[in-house]
């Protein structure tokens, strides 16, 4: 989807992401793994990655699928459809129930 769904001027939203990103780089860094950058790009405009880490590790693939679908379908996170399975795979691999 396009950036026009992000509130306020796009430069401001980008500034937001950069500022938050710099703080988060120290505070909540997601584990390395395939798909990490997709989570950062798609999820962090509305909430930090603390939301991911806080909810670990007890959700299985079905649990993470439900969470991602809720973000997309209910909260209208502008996530490209092709990224969704890769985001779920990352969350399940790195933050899924063992």
């Amino acid at each position, binding site marked *: 989807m396009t950036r026009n769904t992000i*509130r306020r001027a796009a430069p401001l939203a980008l500034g937001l992401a950069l500022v*938050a990103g710099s703080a988060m780089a120290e505070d909540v860094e997601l584990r390395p793994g395939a798909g990490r950058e997709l989570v950062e790009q798609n999820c962090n405009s509305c*909430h930090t990655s603390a939301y991911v880490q*806080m909810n670990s*590790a007890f959700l299985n693939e079905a649990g993470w699928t439900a969470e991602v679908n809720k973000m997309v379908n209910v909260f209208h996170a502008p996530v490209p459809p092709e990224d969704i399975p890769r985001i779920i795979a990352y969350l399940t691999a790195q933050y899924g129930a063992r």
Partner: protein
Amino acid sequence: MLRRHLLAGAAAGLAARPALAELAGLDPRLPDGTRDVARLGTLPGKGPLIQLSDRPPNYEAPLDAFRTAITPNDRFFVRYHLALIPDMDKLRDWKLEIGGDGAERSVTFTLAQLQRDFPHAEVTAVCQCSGNRRGLFQPHVAGVEWGVGAMGNARWTGVRLRDVLARAGVKQSAIEVAFNGADSGIVQETPDFVKSIPLGKAMHPDTLLAWGMNGQPLPHYNGFPVRVVVPGWTATYWMKHVNAITLLTKPEDGFWMKAAYRVPKGLFPTDLPFASQVTAANEPITQIMVNSLVTNLRDGERVRAAGFEVQGIAWDGGHGIRTVEVSSDGGTSWRAATLGENLGVYAFRPWHMRVVPGHAGPVRLMVRATSNAGQAQATQLVPNPAGYHHNVIQTLEVTAA
């Protein structure tokens, strides 16, 4: 303005360091990831709080914030769903609009008008997140993984909602009153956080529009300049930065009423059914369940075998506390604790008791509060999909020496 706020928030985040002594008190039953991510953080105007996320800001009070029956403003928990929070400059231009199809007319008030035009009212009441203690659910439930500190008790000062609604004129056909606040989502299509209460609760004399909290203006992150105070009900209805109130002749049907903050129908008793929002399967969470918390001891703490003090607080959804009982033998026998000052039926009720183990070794402490309505804390967790109403009897194991 937005950017300045975010910079301040980011700076606070950078400055935050986990203070291990404090965080050592994090409950071992919290999810591992929550224990890893929690840190002591600060927000402008706040003392140290347990930061679960800084955007949106979700901070709970550490245990020591509950050693007094009134929770200090700078230790009061902070909870937001949506990350776009107006800064103080913008909020100082605040106006409140009241209307809707259940109103005779639309009216607008400034803060000065509210303060000047209506009799002032005060209530001391617990503001508790519906999901307080969600992190202690077993099995875990997704959401913000709160420990015990997503709550606080304050003296709220403002005006009665019913007095303000009367200026708009309440039609016979009005059934609910909906609240919207100045905060919103980053993505425009994200459902705005709108909550409603039944007209009966809105007209209750203790339901306020409050600007004062413990004699001070509301802190920014607790709803400056005005929030709704719904004593006895969970904090989801206590709309922060409330700037629109709508009298409705049909049920509010946004996501935050229709789908979120719901509990299985009939599972938790309430005084006032929220009839217009009940479905075949579920109903909105409403009234706070009776609960208690030990505030001077943590699990695993060392105590004196010759005797030690157990102190805490108890509260419920508006009946007040009848008894708090403490067991020091794992629930076989119970003794009534001494209740402290009564700040009203919606408030934290302090209590204390001296326990004399008389022997060294583990002591299993349990605390059970009972309300004036006869409701006692749960002996077992009552599972529900969103992890609400955790009010299981607290058990602590301390070591006497």
